[in-house]
């Protein structure tokens, strides 16, 4: 069995940032990742990372914008940390080698983003996630870090409320391995594959959240699912909010900038929940164009498009057959981000001692009911860094705890059983059914009846999933078995989301209920905590929201 002081699972921005913090102190931290680190989905982030750097800007304004953006569900103690540490974190990244576009004064260039009072999104053209991911990965290489890539984590192991390590499946060899650790950090990202038409990578199957839930760690605010207003109509591929930051228009079939009706002041740069609902309303009321809305950047001119939005231009050409210099891009809302996740404090700590989480897999919560664009990259580096620092402190008097090796055997048997099964159901098809159900019934607009139907569908799929067969019986690089297991994670996460959404009888941020269209601070200004009951059902509990500076007000843009 492998033994390391710290095991970091996931090699996107949060995992890498934590890793740098630990490795530069010489701590024995390793990375375990389902894919090679540079394949992580952080690399797909396009538009920007927020920090109040501008002369007239202030971190206090960023603080307020984020609280308001979260529809007052974000924890204000954590948001204060996020925004006051943001500028230093950006400069730290710059020192590590990350390149940002420059302004004329020699500072970092910044563009406007939705729900922000100032242009405060730092960018590298429209590929800032890529730039940050590769820059941080290069630093992880600098500190000569051991990387176990193409390892799939199946279980958390704990002893009496203290972490002992993880169980992982080595995809390359087909062998299960226990890895003992004094501290474990999950930076495993989101669950985009729960929905059809999502912007996420195929690897984003909520594994870390599902594994945590099964280990008894509560998931927080899972009913809050972000739908990004601009994803390519036919593939769901992301079109950055930076496009609107640069001045793009949203048009309906009448050629009207309809946002004037929904957010007269902020227009296209209203927060994502507001814009996504506005688009869906236009489409539902018959003012869409073949089920889509048009994103028009033509008036920005060829030069600006090529300079600031080159990736968007290429993606539109390659994946939608539209050149945005000459034609508007057909877009629609698509599932994008999980506000909810593994409940942590602002140092990444969870309910299990020595077990941490950061990034999209975690819920601190700084995004509350709706995340503002450009705040997720910030979240990964601020809280990845903080988790790294806290783990280093924790290690000072932490010890290895008893590792229950029977769990390795247990997971191995689950895989072997799956492999031997000659069941007739195909996980690929079940997944497609689930994704479509979630999109249709637990989507931008929600109501009890439809969501109950979705829960019923999930129950049905759980039954059918018992009869899944996999074609691939071999050991070496068996992606068939991994995908089948991923499907079980997706299914579990879908169940938590749908039940949480039924439970929350109000509309707040991205969670909009036709049957309860108002925000209800009296009864619902609280976090939901989901755990797994003994019978396998999802149980819910609640926790308080931290409100320090800003009392809830009506939220208009």
């Amino acid at each position, binding site marked *: 069995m492998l033994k390391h002081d710290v095991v970091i699972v996931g090699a996107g921005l949060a995992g890498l940032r934590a890793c740098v913090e630990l490795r530069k102190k010489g701590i024995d931290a390793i990375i375990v990742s389902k*894919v090679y680190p540079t394949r992580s989905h952080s690399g797909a982030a396009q538009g920007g990372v927020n920090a109040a750097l501008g002369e007239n800007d202030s971190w206090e304004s960023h603080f307020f914008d984020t609280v308001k953006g979260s529809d007052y569900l974000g924890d204000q103690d954590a948001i204060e940390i996020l925004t006051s540490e943001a500028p230093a974190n950006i400069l730290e990244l710059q020192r590590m080698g990350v390149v940002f576009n420059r302004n004329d004064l020699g500072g970092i260039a910044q563009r406007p983003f939705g729900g922000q009072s100032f242009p405060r999104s730092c960018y590298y053209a429209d590929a800032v996630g890529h730039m940050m991911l590769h820059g941080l990965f290069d630093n992880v290489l600098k500190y000569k870090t051991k990387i176990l890539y193409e390892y799939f984590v199946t279980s958390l192991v704990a002893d009496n409320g203290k972490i002992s390590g993880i169980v992982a499946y080595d995809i390359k060899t087909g062998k299960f391995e226990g890895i003992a650790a004094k501290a474990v950090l999950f930076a495993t990202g989101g669950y985009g594959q729960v929905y059809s038409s999502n912007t996420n990578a195929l690897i984003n199957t909520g594994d870390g959240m599902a594994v945590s839930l099964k280990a008894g760690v509560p998931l927080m605010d899972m009913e809050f699912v972000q739908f990004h207003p601009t994803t390519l109509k036919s593939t769901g591929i992301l079109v950055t909010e930076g496009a609107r930051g640069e001045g793009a228009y949203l048009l309906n079939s009448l050629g009207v900038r309809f946002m004037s009706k929904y957010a007269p002041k902020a227009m296209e740069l209203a927060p994502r929940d507001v814009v996504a609902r506005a688009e869906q309303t236009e489409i539902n009321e018959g003012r869409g164009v073949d089920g889509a809305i048009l994103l028009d950047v033509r008036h920005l001119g060829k030069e600006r498009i090529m300079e600031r939005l080159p990736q968007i231009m290429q993606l539109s050409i390659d*994946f939608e057959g539209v050149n945005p210099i000459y034609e508007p891009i057909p877009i629609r809302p698509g599932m994008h981000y999980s506000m909810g996740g593994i409940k942590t404090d602002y140092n990444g700590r969870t309910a299990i001692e020595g077990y941490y989480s950061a990034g999209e897999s975690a819920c601190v919560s700084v995004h509350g009911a709706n995340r503002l664009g450009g705040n997720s990259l910030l979240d990964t580096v601020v809280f990845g860094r903080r988790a790294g620092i806290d783990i280093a402190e924790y290690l000072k008097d932490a010890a290895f705890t008893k590792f229950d090796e029977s769990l390795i055997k247990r997971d191995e048997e689950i895989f072997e059983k799956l492999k031997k099964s000659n069941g007739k159901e195909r996980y690929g098809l079940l997944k497609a059914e689930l994704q479509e159900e979630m999109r249709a019934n637990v989507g931008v607009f929600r109501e009890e009846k439809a969501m109950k139907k979705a829960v019923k569908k999930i129950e049905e799929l759980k039954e059918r999933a018992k009869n899944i067969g996999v074609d691939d019986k*071999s050991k070496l*690089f068996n*992606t*068939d078995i991994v995908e089948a297991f991923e499907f079980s994670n997706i299914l579990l996460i879908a169940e938590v989301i749908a039940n949480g959404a039924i439970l929350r009888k109000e509309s707040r941020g991205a969670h909009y209920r036709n049957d309860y269209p108002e925000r209800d601070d009296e009864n619902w200004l609280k976090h939901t905590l989901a755990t797994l009951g003994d019978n396998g059902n999802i149980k819910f509990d609640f926790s308080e929201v931290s409100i320090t500076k800003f009392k809830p007000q009506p939220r208009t843009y």
Partner: protein
Amino acid sequence: MEFKVRTYRFNPDTSDKPYYKEYAVQDFPGMTVLNALMKIKSEIDGTLSFRRSCRSAICGSCAMKINGISKLACKTQVNPEITKFGIINVEPLANMPVVRDLIVEQESFFDKIKEIRPYLLGQREDEEHHKFHALKEGEKIIQPVYYKSEFQNLTGNNDTPNCILCECCYSECGGVVGNKNYLGPAALAKLYRYSEDPRDNDRNGSRLVNGSKQGGMWDCVHCQACEEFCPKGISPVKGIVKMHEKAIKNSITFSSGAKHIISIAKSIQETGRLDEVKVAFDTGGITGLINDLPMAFGAGLKGKIPPIRLKLIKDMDDIRLAYKELDLEGK
């Protein structure tokens, strides 16, 4: 339309020989090769193995040979391929051992990335003492100043920082084929990226010194394949050539590649001609010359013997003038 996908299959677990297997797939508008492979995997044959993740040409997982050319499957449309080839033929990337089906062993590729030390070596002096601190109420951060012009080679759309390490260039690279130690275009593009970074404090020029060692930038064969096949429109070879110039300018000329170029330039400057014997001597020394003897002998048998003494060409004045002008331009 129904079309055929012909896949390279290899699983050492079940058989020791690779083979090809065909699948019939129904298309939909805008279908990519990755869509087709996923359809096969989920509906027809779950044993077909390939890497994939982002499906939007930014993660670099799904690089493979499609009808003979290294490409990203997620970015390659089915329709034009079918029009051109009548079939989708998919094979693993070249220059790396195959693990299974379309999956190659990437360790050697990433080892080479590590070898070039892909990070800033030291910091600019004013940044060295910088300390992280969270802002207090009313406080603002002071940024270090870097002008646009300092980053001009790093912030363009097709500049090397946009590399996604997908290995397409490495798979197509003519230099790697016969020279497994050659770092290859992606690693050298990264070397170039850091050598152009204004924040880098590489005080003794060690980056270019290391990059000039055997297997480094002078082993590029200038076939331009890396530029031709890069799915992100990057040209590693341009960076490599710029590094050649920089190395020579900084007198990092110990490598045979640098010596070779200097000798050629000198020979033309002095005589207007290529003094092949002298160039061979300057490049490889006496041992190099001896090593080249069998080749020279072979060439001699075919009547191709370079003249021992070169005559100056007629237009030497023009050559001298051209050199003078280049000197003024600082080349």
